[in-house]
């Protein structure tokens, strides 16, 4: 679960990581009042859950109430990278003497947390990593023993950070690591960690993503994890427990397993245009596939539906019943091609055929996609 910048900043505050004076607002009036308290110039930052916000116009400096009214008015209700801006953060504009980068994530291969630090923080950090890898300090952490202050100091020292800043920066990194483990984060990032002219520090932007599988056991009042998903179909997907990604095309897709779903898209995508990606995860039931049909059919103007499922956890004919029930109840007219293999597959095929689904019984998805293309072209 991703946190908005202002939510992550609040979390930082609880652990003593210094953040700018700032407040999140939903109206221009509130923005004016907060800016008045903070004092101009202030930053206006769109609260959207996507990277690259700055370059997309989601962060502006305003120097007067008039400018603020214009900017906040424009920003609230606009879209940044396709996401609506409902909230903006009005934030103290700090004097920047230096920008550092601090990031913590998990290295999937070793299964260990990795702490990344750079004295070249800011929007170009990935470029820095590619072109001047020596400017990024990396420490792989043994989760058995945790992260120690000396490791942070050592990273910073090797990057040439001055002795005066070393202690305070190491302290921030250690606090971030504590948050990372306590909140079971997948990523925790401060970029930039601003060094002020007086050598104070400010976490001027915050990225924090909590492992969705761990959210329920975290003892902290976290916001609702579904509410924040902007696309209604993607939100419904999360609610029913499947992964749904909305796409531009017109072929509905239901697959069991991300790998099979991706392979299906790869094969379909050579000729046709998938309208979504949907993978059910394990444990297909009648109810789940009924809901998947509902979800896929929320998208208007589909030309066909492609179902590619295997019965692993559960016998596959249960799911087939859900598909058929939806077809019958809603009198679906577009062609549906299904490849459904695994336990109880013959029964499954019979059920699907009873509702006019085009069943392909071979293993290779290519053959089912051939059938799909044929049917779409016929229409």
């Amino acid at each position, binding site marked *: 679960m991703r946190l908005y910048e202002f939510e992550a900043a609040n979390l930082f505050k609880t652990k003593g990581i210094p953040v700018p004076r700032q407040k999140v607002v939903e109206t221009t009036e509130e923005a004016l009042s907060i800016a008045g308290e903070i004092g101009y110039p202030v930053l206006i930052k769109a609260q959207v859950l996507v990277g690259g916000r700055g370059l997309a116009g989601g962060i502006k400096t305003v120097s007067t109430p008039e400018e603020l009214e214009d900017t906040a008015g424009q920003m609230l209700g606009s879209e940044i990278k396709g996401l609506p801006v409902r909230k903006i953060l009005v934030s103290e504009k700090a004097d920047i003497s230096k920008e550092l980068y601090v990031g913590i994530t998990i290295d999937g291969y070793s*299964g260990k947390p*990795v702490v990344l630090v750079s004295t070249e923080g800011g929007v170009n950090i990935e470029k820095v990593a590619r072109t001047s890898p020596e400017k990024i300090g990396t420490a792989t952490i043994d989760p058995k023993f945790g992260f120690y202050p000396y490791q942070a100091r050592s990273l910073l020292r090797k990057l040439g950070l001055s002795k005066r800043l070393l202690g305070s920066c190491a302290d921030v990194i250690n606090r971030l690591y504590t948050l990372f483990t306590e909140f*079971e984060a997948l990523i*925790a990032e401060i970029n930039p960690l601003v060094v002020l002219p007086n050598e104070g520090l400010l976490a001027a932007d915050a990225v924090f993503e909590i492992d969705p599988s761990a959210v329920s056991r975290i003892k902290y009042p976290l916001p609702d994890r579904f509410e924040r998903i902007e696309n209604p179909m993607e939100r419904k997907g999360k609610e029913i427990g499947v992964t749904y990604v909305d796409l531009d095309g017109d072929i509905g897709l239901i697959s069991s397993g991300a790998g099979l779903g*991706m*392979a299906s898209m*790869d094969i379909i995508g050579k000729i046709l245009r998938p309208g979504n990606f949907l993978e059910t995860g394990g444990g297909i039931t009648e109810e789940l596939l009924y809901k998947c049909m509902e979800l896929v059919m929320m998208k208007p103007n589909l030309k066909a539906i492609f179902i590619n499922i295997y019965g692993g956890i559960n016998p596959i004919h249960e799911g087939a019943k859900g598909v058929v029930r939806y077809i019958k109840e809603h009198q679906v007219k577009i062609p549906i091609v299904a490849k459904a293999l695994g*336990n109880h597959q013959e029964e499954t095929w019979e059920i699907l055929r009873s509702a006019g689904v085009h069943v392909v019984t071979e293993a*290779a998805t290519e053959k089912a996609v051939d059938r799909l293309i044929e049917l779409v072209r016929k229409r």
Partner: protein
Amino acid sequence: MSILLDEKTRVIVQGITGKIARVQTKWMLDYGTTIVGGVTPGKGGATVEGLPVFDSVEEAVKETGANASVFFVPAPFVLDAFYETIDAAIKFIVIVPEHVPVHDVMKMRSYAIENKVFAIGPTTPGILVPGKGKMGIMPASMFAPGRVGIISRSGTLSYEFAGILSENNVGQSTVVGMGADPIVLANLPDILELFEKDDETDAVIIVGEVGGEQEERAAKYITSHMKKPVAAYIAGRFSPQGKRMGHAGAIVRSSAGTVEAKWEALAKAKVTILESPMDVSYWTSKHGFH
């Protein structure tokens, strides 16, 4: 010999009294797997499919001589059960459940390494040795005995590849689902190593996917350690990428993790690239693998 699962493997099913586990236990038994019992804390004394259920892994091991375990334990309890299983001296564990918290998986990896335990998953369909047995949820109908090994990051794609091979009369020595999580307990090279040593495997198919760096690491391993022929399919060439936040992930990986980057790394390691799943049957027939 197959890898990891053979005639000497005596399996317990953890969480055996759950609805799904009961069905899967029957299917594993039907497939010929030597299941010797199950564990569900608080349900000791019950039976499932005629098998004794124990309250603890320790008792199960003592009473049945079990040496392997397959998990159908609810995700929040997997970590605890994993420690229990390792402390009961079981050396091969298959973690079927999905949604195990990532920070738990990190601890599990540490503990498994410290105790020299081989574990696969989480979010794995498990392992299947055609005609001999299976631990996990792979649907038996897709598989046939033979001499080609399959390792797949995706569960269902492992069925797909086995299915295509079986339809083309190419059998499998062992099919391993690595697990679809961002961190898994056994990495691709760990499993490749077993296939390289297995005298019943002639060739290996890697079924990978976009993201992470398993395939890139596998390429390195293959270059330096493998003599057997390897082919690889990588799913996700046209997949939409999620809206990314933060930079840490991109910085930490040595590779871009794209399908193209993986192809390049694997091709350098003389791995045959399969652009589409069906290509696997051309590859096997061309080389006469069966």
